[in-house]
């Protein structure tokens, strides 16, 4: 009798365990926090918190003053020797591709620095120049209000850790923002996907 009960209980526990694991990973598909952010952006897009930045021309800017429905956002720090340089290079390539497809007027590229200590409008201007940015469609910004910056980073799940050598380790991604909501998150090697998503959005607009 007891053995029989134990067996039945084991079956129930296995079923419940598999169910909980499935629920915790969205059907065994999401295993990391990064995956979770991407899943949420695609399935339940959320409004970005309000934030203002000072751009490379020392102008105070916000998403509302950009006047473009599509914004592609990334987070960098200009003294970064590795990932942020690659991201700048990718943005540069994207800029050319968007121009070829005549989409550049509806898409704003935006590089925000999370290194509020060291980055200034001047260093952002230098960063943009390095990748031959057309500043009409690609701007760099420093968020001066630290509270707003950490709220934004937290909202997007950008974790910035000091690497012990004066730099930072951070999750690098491109955030596709449409009408103030992040609707997709891309890795830096997904340029083609980004372009396809923007094209699809362009047809809606």
């Amino acid at each position, binding site marked *: 009798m*007891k053995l029989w009960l134990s*067996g039945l209980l084991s079956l129930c526990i296995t079923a419940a*365990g598999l169910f909980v694991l499935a629920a915790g990973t969205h059907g065994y598909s999401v295993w990391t926090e990064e995956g979770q952010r991407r899943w949420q952006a695609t399935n339940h897009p959320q409004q970005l918190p309000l934030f203002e930045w000072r751009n490379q021309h020392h102008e105070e800017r916000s998403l509302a003053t950009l006047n473009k429905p599509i914004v592609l956002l990334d987070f960098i720090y200009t003294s970064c020797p590795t990932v942020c340089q690659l991201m700048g290079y990718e943005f540069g390539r994207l800029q050319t591709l968007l121009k070829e497809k005549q989409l550049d007027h509806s898409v704003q590229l935006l590089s925000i620095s999370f290194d509020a200590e060291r980055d200034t409008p001047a260093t952002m201007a230098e960063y943009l120049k390095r990748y031959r940015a057309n500043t009409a469609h690609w701007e760099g910004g420093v968020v001066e209000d630290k509270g707003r910056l950490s709220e934004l980073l937290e909202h997007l799940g950008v974790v910035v850790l000091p690497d012990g050598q004066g730099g930072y380790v951070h999750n690098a991604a491109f955030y596709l923002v449409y009408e103030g909501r992040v609707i997709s998150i891309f890795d830096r090697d997904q340029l083609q996907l980004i372009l396809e998503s923007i094209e699809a959005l362009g047809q809606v607009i």
Partner: protein
Amino acid sequence: MQIKRLNYLSLVTPVLIGMVLMGVMRWFEQSLVVNILVGYPLLVYFGFYYGRELIDHRTLRSTLDVIGGIPGVLVATFTLAFWMIPRWVDASLAHLNIALIKYLCLILLVGFSLGCSWSRMHFITKAVLKIEFLTMLFRLGWIYMISPDRLCNNYLLGEQVLLGKSLLAIGFLLMIVLCLPLFVAERDDQGLENPKLT
């Protein structure tokens, strides 16, 4: 020390120790290696210790005969698997309430239920579990060592690699420890002395 009778006073010590452990965990969590290799085992062992004592409690015996054993081990396995998922490790670092749920799960659902179950399991089941645990160490160690991406946003890649190597090292050590009895002349029949489920 065996708790033959459940009284409220005997609950004070474990609750106090549990609270201290949970406080220390927050500190352990600053390092991935310490979090997984010191923090997790500490919480699990704490639960395991008290679970093992309860096993002799007379009024609980009939309940434990049903729950203890394989069901208890299954609960422990699924709970541990859940809290090893990088997403939930990250979530528990970011939110204190999720962290508290994790600590309680590791103490009660992993440690305690293993403690209640261990001695009433057949020695073959025990052996299967030991081997499964060993291979889990190797599998996880390998994944953490070779993954080019950070699995947890809150830890550096270097720490992840170090955790992988440590898991492999512990796996090898444990393998040696588990294999030693094979080379000892006398047969180890401990499991057979406990014929409850045989």
